[in-house]
């Protein structure tokens, strides 16, 4: 599903990732952990194709990200959901519109988009807030909108960057349960987190990054 080969990435003089090689199988649930600045976000952004490595290459479903055109990359992104640390919601659009935007780009019929969006909002427990604007939601609710947008297109891969970073323990459990249910449906889930508590609660494969290097890869 996801294969990384000798990835190197740097920002100016700072080396963000150094010689990272790993493989995530289809349907796996993986945590990427490590201290701040370890390269977790960079790794996820490289897998998503938001950035390019200086060296090495990435295969997603055997497709080399370095060799695909911009339009093909756009089509590939429709199969990958990304939950951003800062949510990246549009404040001038309602919750419904923020989620539906991921389907708008596919050109599917409006009726189908409405149905799928409502189903997804129901799944994340926000069906009563579809007409509300993101800024009037709590942090946890905004996080769920971001998750809804990532999963509404039924992605084969779900990447989440610190999805519980700003949430209290109850909300964290709620969100993790949501990721669990998405994983149950066969989606490959990769979550970047620095929270040790989160890792203690669950029994999934954990990849440890330190200083941009692979420091451990454990199947718990």
């Amino acid at each position: 599903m996801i294969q990384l080969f000798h990835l190197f990435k740097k920002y100016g003089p700072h080396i963000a990732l150094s010689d990272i090689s790993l493989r995530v199988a289809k349907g796996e649930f993986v945590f990427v952990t490590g201290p701040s600045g370890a390269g977790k976000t960079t790794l996820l952004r490289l897998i998503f194709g938001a950035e390019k490595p200086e060296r090495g290459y990435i295969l997603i479903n055997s497709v080399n990200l370095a060799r695909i055109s911009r339009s093909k990359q756009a089509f590939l992104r429709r199969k990958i959901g990304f939950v951003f640390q800062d949510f990246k919601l549009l404040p001038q659009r309602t919750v419904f519109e923020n989620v539906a935007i991921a389907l708008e780009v596919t050109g599917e019929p409006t009726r189908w988009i409405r149905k799928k969006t409502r189903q997804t909002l129901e799944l994340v427990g926000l069906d009563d807030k579809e007409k509300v604007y993101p800024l009037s939601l709590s942090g946890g609710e905004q996080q769920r909108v971001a998750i809804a947008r990532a999963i509404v297109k039924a992605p084969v891969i779900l990447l989440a960057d610190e999805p519980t970073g700003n949430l209290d323990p109850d909300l964290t459990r709620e969100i993790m349960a949501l990721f669990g249910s998405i994983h149950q449906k066969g989606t490959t889930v990769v979550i970047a987190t620095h929270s040790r508590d989160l890792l203690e609660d669950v029994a999934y494969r954990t990849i440890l990054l330190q200083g941009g290097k692979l420091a451990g890869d454990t199947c718990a």
Partner: protein
Amino acid sequence: MRIRFRTYFAKQALADIRDNLTVHVLGLGTMVSSLLIFGVFLLFFVNISSWIHEWGNTLSFSVYLKDGISAYKRDKVDAFIRQLPGEKTLRYISKEDAMVDLKETLGSDAAFLNRLSRNPLPASYEFFFERGKKHDLNPKAIKEALTELDGVADVQCSEELLNNFKAIMDMLESIGFLVGGLLCLCVVFIMTNTIKLTIFYRKTEIEILKLVGATDWFIKLPFLLEGVIQGILAGGLTLLALVCGYLFFATKEVHFLGMNSLDLAFLSFGHMALLFLISVGLGLMGSVIALGRFFKV
């Protein structure tokens, strides 16, 4: 392209215009002003060309006679003109008639003519050939033959005046193209900046659209449509303003170069279509340039 996509693009383009209404209204106003200058020039040019063309359909001569010309010599000039081929209208204007004509033309400004000690105006023959006959004639040869007649002081031919006017019109045409070109550049510049502002306004949304898998064209098309809509509006408003202006002036008597009241012509369908297409084309060009320069996601 699927119908839903098309409605999405149109909706998005209209939403962008609504969200940046002030910028678009200002841009539209400047576009209309620029196109209006161009349109007025086009209208002026079309009318002058039509008048000159109409004028050019007749060939006229003014043969000025020397003062104190004998009746015999005058009869010879008269006979020469009458024997010229083709149907023509001939009129003899005596010195006295010429003065009366001049006074009528000058109207209230003619008072100074009464103070002249003698009538300085020459007697003349004015004749013109009927419409459609001029192409069989050689104006240059007729003028030369008339000039050589004894008692003739000067000969003026409409063809020469017409040629002079054509030279002026050619010059005006060149100036028109230059001014038109500059105005087009101005419109493109305005449109580019209008779209640039919309791109900046939607920067976050564009970023998110890219992240959820939108293709470049999916994001770019509403901006292109925005330029086209702006062009359509500017073209339509310009034509409307030109029609209103034309209807206002068409009800008034227009005099040009001392000629009698002239009929004002409006732009032909071809000219209107050209103006409209230029407007739409410039709007689209502005969008294309803005996307090329500022669409970096």
